[in-house]
């Protein structure tokens, strides 16, 4: 912007601010005139009756006008993005706290069941957050590291879940055997899909993966003999504590350890299982980043042509990223199946893929902590706003817009080098390529 070069303190340009506010009010009027200005109600005879609510419309337009005016005036004064309005001391404190943030986050996650042992609702929420965090970590390998935009990640989640359910029900195998199988089958599917489509890049790859996600969902919906179609699969075996079922029987977990039976045992166990799975995903990702394959993924995101000129087999490299990402999605799916005890295609819609992608994008591509925080904030936020159901999407949308404006590269946008010759440094976000910017041809 042209304003940026000028000194901070300067005359308030009221006319320009008024113009900006008037424009915002006009847009608001255009948007809301039909949505809020008019309303149809069922009349006494059953026919719809048109009523007007011009008062509410005027109030909203006026509110938008005032807010836009205020924003324009503050903007003129500050002449800087919000980021620069944060005081330097706070920034310094934050960057000093950053290394401990991860430890604090993991530590808190570990003691959640102890603190909230009596709160079944919060434990369940914790499990959901950890599941999505794990999905986010898995997708982060594909999108954040390798820069391959995948809009059909829920397909791998679904394959993991259905593999687990079908194998456990058909062959009666235990959770600890079915879980890896679910991951392996999802990875295989990733490879099968990857072979033909990974020569595509950027938007084209995104569209194909989007289609793939829908294809898998439709197969699950229509292959009635195998998947039960829209009825899904129920009665999926619950996990046992290394052979000890969580029930009130004499050979159950509670009786064996001499504890009074409580259904919370299973919830706590499930919580630790998914937490362990999520932490394993993080550990593997961090290890992989330091290995040649991880560096090749990041190099691929930065410049594919240069990779080929350096003798890197880009097809294989992309395929491993795709397969490993799919594998973690499959693990999460298997866990989901055993936790719910019931799965149906409804759980694996495009909305799931979008949610996981939103977690990755908001968290900051390639950042583990960012993804974990984003998962907690988004799913926690969903729960928090459950009472205000009809405004939930409104807040979600506003939050998305705010993030895109103020932190376009996610909450944690800096990149830590995988190896250092000397000092500890991070790469500013502006330099790092991401899936959205695509590879230059």
């Amino acid at each position, binding site marked *: 912007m042209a304003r940026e070069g000028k000194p901070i303190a300067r005359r308030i340009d009221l006319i320009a601010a008024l113009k900006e506010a008037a424009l915002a009010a006009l847009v608001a009027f255009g948007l809301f005139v039909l949505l809020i200005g008019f309303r149809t109600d069922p009349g006494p005879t059953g026919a719809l009756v048109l009523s007007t609510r011009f008062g509410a419309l005027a109030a909203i337009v006026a509110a938008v006008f005032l807010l836009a005016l205020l924003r324009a005036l503050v903007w003129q004064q500050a002449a800087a993005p919000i980021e620069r309005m944060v005081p330097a001391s706070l920034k310094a404190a934050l960057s000093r706290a950053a290394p401990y943030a991860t430890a604090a986050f993991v530590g808190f996650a570990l003691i959640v069941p102890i603190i909230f042992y009596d709160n079944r609702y919060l434990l369940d929420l914790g499990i959901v957050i950890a599941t999505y965090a794990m999905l986010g970590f898995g997708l982060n390998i594909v999108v954040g590291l390798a820069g391959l935009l995948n809009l059909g990640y829920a397909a791998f989640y679904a394959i993991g879940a259905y593999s687990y359910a079908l194998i456990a029900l058909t062959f009666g195998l235990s959770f600890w055997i079915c879980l890896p199988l679910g991951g392996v089958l999802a990875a295989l599917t990733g490879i099968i899909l990857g072979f033909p489509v990974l020569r595509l890049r950027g938007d084209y790859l995104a569209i194909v993966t989007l289609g793939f996600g829908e294809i898998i969902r439709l197969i699950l919906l229509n292959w009635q003999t195998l998947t039960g179609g829209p009825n899904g699969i129920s009665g999926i075996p619950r996990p046992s504590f290394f052979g000890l079922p969580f029930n009130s029987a004499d050979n159950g977990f509670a009786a064996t350890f001499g504890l009074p039976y409580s259904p919370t045992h299973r919830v706590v166990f499930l919580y630790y299982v998914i937490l362990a799975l999520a932490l394993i995903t993080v550990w593997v990702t961090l290890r992989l980043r330091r290995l*040649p394959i991880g*560096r090749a993924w*990041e190099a691929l995101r930065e410049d594919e*042509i240069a990779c080929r000129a*350096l003798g*890197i087999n880009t097809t294989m490299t992309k395929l491993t990223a795709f397969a490993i990402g799919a594998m973690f999605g499959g693990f999460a799916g298997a866990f989901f199946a055993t936790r719910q005890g019931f799965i149906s295609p409804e759980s694996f819609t495009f909305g799931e893929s979008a949610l996981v992608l939103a977690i990755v994008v908001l968290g900051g591509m390639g950042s583990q902590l960012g993804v974990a925080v984003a998962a907690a904030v988004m799913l926690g936020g969903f729960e928090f706003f459950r009472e205000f159901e009809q405004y939930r999407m409104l807040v979600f949308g506003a939050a998305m817009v705010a993030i895109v404006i103020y932190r376009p590269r996610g909450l944690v946008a800096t990149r830590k080098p*995988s190896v250092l*010759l000397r000092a500890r440094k991070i*790469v500013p976000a502006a330099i790092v390529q991401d899936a959205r910017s695509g590879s230059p041809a």
Partner: protein
Amino acid sequence: MSADIVLTVEHVAMRFGGLLAVNDLSFVAREREITALIGPNGAGKTTVFNCITGFYKPTVGRLQLVHRGGASFLLERLPEFRIAREARVARTFQNVRLFAGMTLLENLLVAQHNALMVASGFTVLGLFGSRAYDRAEAAAIDKARYWLDRVGLAERADDPAGALPYGAQRRLEIVRAMCTDPVLLCLDEPAAGLNNRESAELNAFLHAIRDEHAISILLIEHDMGVVMEISDHIVVLDYGEKIADGAPQQVRNDAKVIAAYLGVADEEVESVEAEVAR
């Protein structure tokens, strides 16, 4: 100087639809020599480069690369990553292609990907921590440090490559190519955008790596000062055809080369055209 042939280009033609970008081009690049490919804009130099490095497949012709050990590769039959990995042809790009968000050190480690991949047991052993991989990585870092020292960038090893000034980015791209242990190093306009001092340093550096690391260099260059000074052998292209081939002195005085570069007086056009068309 040794006269063993490293690269043989035979009757190569490259056609893009109706455009014949390179027509019946044959030349050789000899071991431990700097061969320059020059010509006016649009003469097809970069197309030839892309054919040699496998980014294009020539419509007709043969490209043979021979290693000192006797191994021989037909480049037109290999995909580009195998040309870099097996035939050991490394290249740089006209518009620098670095991994901008990664550090200098990481850039040079990516260049050693294939060796490190084997050392990490194709990721499996490396994932669980193996001594052999740690040693291989340490050796790779040493090699990267050596090359960074060579171009005076060791101080900035942990900075993102995108933050370097342009001249330094060009140097980094060259040493990144060197980290692949090439037999033939192809440089696409290495001196473009460099000032006089930088380009003099580049000349000295190219001579040094040719002599110390016993590699052959093939380069495209516009700057005649650079070309005449560093090349052992020059191939001149114009409109996709070779118009001259020889030592710098010989090429410098070639009538067709002068005509291609400087243009000719009207009365000479016909005689030169006749000569070019032959």
